[in-house]
């Protein structure tokens, strides 16, 4: 299993585009906005927006776009089937994908937090435990969405298509493209019930030093469980 995860990680890192959108882009966002707005550790809520949006963007790319495309591609190309002829069940390959994704997500979060705080004077997350819980729930729920897309899409192209659609809708309604406080009321309400929106608001709350709204944590937890079970039930190996 470790060897499989190691191979999957190596494959991921060999694809420059993946590394770019998951690691470089979020950090780049923090660098760009950090340089423009020169944050001074003030209490303006907009200061929690930029690093949170950077994290949400990276994780959404990883979970809603790369994960379903890769997994659906593995099925489409018969890689899962080839593995089914060995003593090792292909579910292990999905496990390895998940492990690699989680690892990269943690690296992305750590990089954004470090660069934001050390280089540009953004505050560190004000309530670290709340931030940590939010990140774990966020990763699980966003990956569960990606797995369900992989389970439903017949080909990797369709998976990419659905993934991108889910990604953009989530970004808009979730207050990632634009800060939530600038969105109309109905979009905010919809966003509260999407995993990315809940993740984004919970990130900002914990960054500002408070606990996220229970609704947001609940939405992420429910999505993680329900979508994971649904994808396990509907997943086809070939």
């Amino acid at each position, binding site marked *: 299993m470790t*060897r*499989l995860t190691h*191979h999957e990680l*190596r*494959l991921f890192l*060999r*694809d420059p585009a993946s590394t770019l959108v998951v690691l470089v882009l979020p950090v780049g966002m923090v660098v760009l906005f950090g340089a423009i707005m020169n944050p001074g550790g003030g209490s303006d809520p907009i200061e929690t927006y930029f690093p949170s949006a950077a994290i949400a963007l990276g994780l959404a790319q990883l979970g809603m776009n790369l994960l379903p495309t890769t997994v659906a591609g*593995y099925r489409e*190309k*018969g*890689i899962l*089937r*080839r*593995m*089914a*002829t*060995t*003593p*090792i*069940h292909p579910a292990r390959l999905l496990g390895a994908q998940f492990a690699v994704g989680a690892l990269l997500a943690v690296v992305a979060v750590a990089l954004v937090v470090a660069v934001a705080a050390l280089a540009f004077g953004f505050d560190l997350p004000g309530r670290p435990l709340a931030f940590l819980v939010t990140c774990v729930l966020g990763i699980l729920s966003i990956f569960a969405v990606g797995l369900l897309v992989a389970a439903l899409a017949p080909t990797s192209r369709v998976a990419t298509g659905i993934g991108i659609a889910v990604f953009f809708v989530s970004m808009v309604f979730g207050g990632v493209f634009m800060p939530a406080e600038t969105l109309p009321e109905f979009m905010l309400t919809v966003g509260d019930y999407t995993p990315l929106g809940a993740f984004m608001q919970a990130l900002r709350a914990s960054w500002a030093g408070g606990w996220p709204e229970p609704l947001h944590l609940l939405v992420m937890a429910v999505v993680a469980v329900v979508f994971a079970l649904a994808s396990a039930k509907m997943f086809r190996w070939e």
Partner: protein
Amino acid sequence: MTVIEVHNLHKRYGEHVAVDDVSFTVERGEIFGIVGPNGAGKTTTVECVEGLRRPDGGTVNVLGMDPRTDGAKLRRRVGVQLQESHLPDRLKVAEVLDLYSSFYPRPADWRRLLDEWGLAAKRDTAFGKLSGGQKQRLFIALALIGDPEVVVLDELTTGLDPQARRDTWELVERIGERGVTVVLVTHFMEEAERLCDRLMVVDRGRVAAIDTPAGLIAGTLPEQRIRFRPSSPVAESLLAELPGVASVTVHGPRVEVAGTGDLLHVVTSVLARHQIIAADLRIEQGTLDDAFVALTGRRTT
């Protein structure tokens, strides 16, 4: 010793019956061929043997195990080359072999496989950059990586050029020489004739015949033709009355005898008794291709 036993196998996909009552056995060390037109149910049959598909009816026993219930245990001892498969394009040859060898409790030495299958120079090449023949060799090496007792090779040489195909045949013969039982699915009759100890002809999900290549030809196309130029004239009646002879035709200096059984021996001995020498002697017999057409009513290619 029997290593594969299939009885009354049935498999349908929706309304379409893919395999309709197929039974056969494969003995240890044998190279057993499964031939048939496209869509005859060859691949479905071997997929049931590999445990990749669940049969709708009948029993399958491989190395004393039922693929349905002992799948994981069975797959440690059976190597498979699938008709169509890929690996991640960016994975390198040596990495693929290293990874797959980690799936087995007692794997073969993958570095040796690399040499044996002519892939040593490609060990650091990404899968996506290999040629068709190299990919095929890699898949055969992967089928052998668990040091299996049985290997199933499905459409081994489809898409290869004639030279690569012949090279691959030699390698398959080498697998057979090691005592590994080989099940070979193919639609190339030349390949089946060259490699297989016994053949099963499948058509429309049913077994049309099971025999050795020579037995299949003799069984379906018993007639042979002998042509020669006698050193002195031969009376037609001399040959026509011989056992097994169906017809005798004389074209100028050439004689053609058609018939069944041990025709060559019968004809040459009567000629010898009359001190006639047969020059330019040719024997024509049906090919496996002809036998296949006779059995299924279809051409293979």
